[in-house]
């Protein structure tokens, strides 16, 4: 599938899938032969149906009784990998930059494609670097706790901030970022 075509079915880029799968392996959510099979199945240069991502999300959910802290860690681990072992370090230099990057055209929008009503949006609604406050409105199909982890991990990765937290503030699609 080329980058130009607009797929009728939602798809996720292999780079994102690969990071997600590798994070699952690093955290031992999958291990042994299942881990090998999971990683072997993902070509970082291809697009995959969104259903495959959802399948892994479901697998994570089924593996833990108390899954929320795991999902959060999974998002953080994904972004740690992206920054230290992927292109992240070359793309952002300060933690706050990640918020602009992720909500821009090279962020989430570049790794998920398909009908708008399914892939949703990921927008920076508020940003105040003085107060260390930002708000992101997200209607992507991804798990919101993983998404919180992604934001925490991405903002923390450059190492210039002392404090980062992301809360939902009662509205799962409204991600409130606090960074100092």
């Amino acid at each position, binding site marked *: 599938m080329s980058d130009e075509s607009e797929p009728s079915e939602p798809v996720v880029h292999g780079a994102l899938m690969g990071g997600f799968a590798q994070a699952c392996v690093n955290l031992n959510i999958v291990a042994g032969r299942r881990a090998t099979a999971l990683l072997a199945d993902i070509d970082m240069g291809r697009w995959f149906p969104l259903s495959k991502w959802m399948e892994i999300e479901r697998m994570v959910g089924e593996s833990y*009784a*108390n899954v929320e*802290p795991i999902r959060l860690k999974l998002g953080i681990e994904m972004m740690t990998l992206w920054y230290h072992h992927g292109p992240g370090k070359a793309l952002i230099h300060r933690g706050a930059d990640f918020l602009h990057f992720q909500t821009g055209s090279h962020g989430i929008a570049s790794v998920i494609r398909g009908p708008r009503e399914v892939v949703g949006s990921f927008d920076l609604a508020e940003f105040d670097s003085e107060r260390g406050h930002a708000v992101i409105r997200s209607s992507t199909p991804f798990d919101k706790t993983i998404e919180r982890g992604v934001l925490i991990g991405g903002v923390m990765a450059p190492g210039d901030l002392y404090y980062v937290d992301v809360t939902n503030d009662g509205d799962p699609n409204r991600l409130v970022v606090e960074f100092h």
Partner: protein
Amino acid sequence: MTLDEILEGRDPDRLSELSREDMRRLFWMYKGLLKRVERDTAYWQATNDNLRTAYERLDEQERELARAYQTIRQDLEIAQQVQHALLPKDHPEMLARFEFSVYHKQMTEVGGDYYDFYRLRDGSHAIGVFDISGHGVSAALIMAYLKAQLVQTMEQVSRPRDIVEYLNNATVGFLREVRRYATVNFVAFGERTFRYVCGGGYGVLVRGGEVHTFNKGDPFIGLRRRAYSEYELPFETGDVLALYTDGMVEAQDSAGADYSTRRLHELVRTNAELPANQILQRCLDDYGQFRRVDADDITLIVLRRRAA
């Protein structure tokens, strides 16, 4: 004094000298650490809970496995008893004419080596030794099947060649379907001779200090429909006959060398003057010293014709 200098010098008493900005940094550093600890604690708690659940599941599965294993063990013990019951026991008529001794050992509870003594329609005595391909339960099932087929076959024909041919024709379809076959060594005794049919089996006659090895070139049971050859050898008082499967002669020592037919035949030849049970024991003692581990079912039958 800056925060970095205080932290490097490990001098908390000088915290009051920090600037307002450094105090703010310290505050967020501390809060950041608390937040990380909070997230990590939640993560490890969830992981730990999951580990406990996994161990509990593992315990339950281990118990289920133990129950299943016990059931299989019991089934195998019953299968072993059934298979033992299918092997020949007392044969006073055979004992009246032949002095013989049998060693029969399956590698697992049940196996694919099968031997039996028969009384043919013409009144003569016979022995059949079979080695079914594979081991364990599947081979044991084929053994029971072959025994049933042999009983029917004996009601129809009495010459060794006819018996083996009839048996092969009756079973080849089924055996090919289940991808199994069996070696055969069928010997029928006359007054002063015996006739044999040998498809992959092993046999040796020691007579007057000389060794006569069976011609084993005929096909195995279950491979294809084909005519079998029948051979006749003299078998008189004092002659010794040994019939066996490949388990013993193909066993290896720690260096990887086969026990070999030559070694076994030589043992039978040099001990041919002993009673049959002692010949068998000499063979087993020698084999026991040789082999590293049994890798196959083993059957060895030693016979001597008694004086008339």
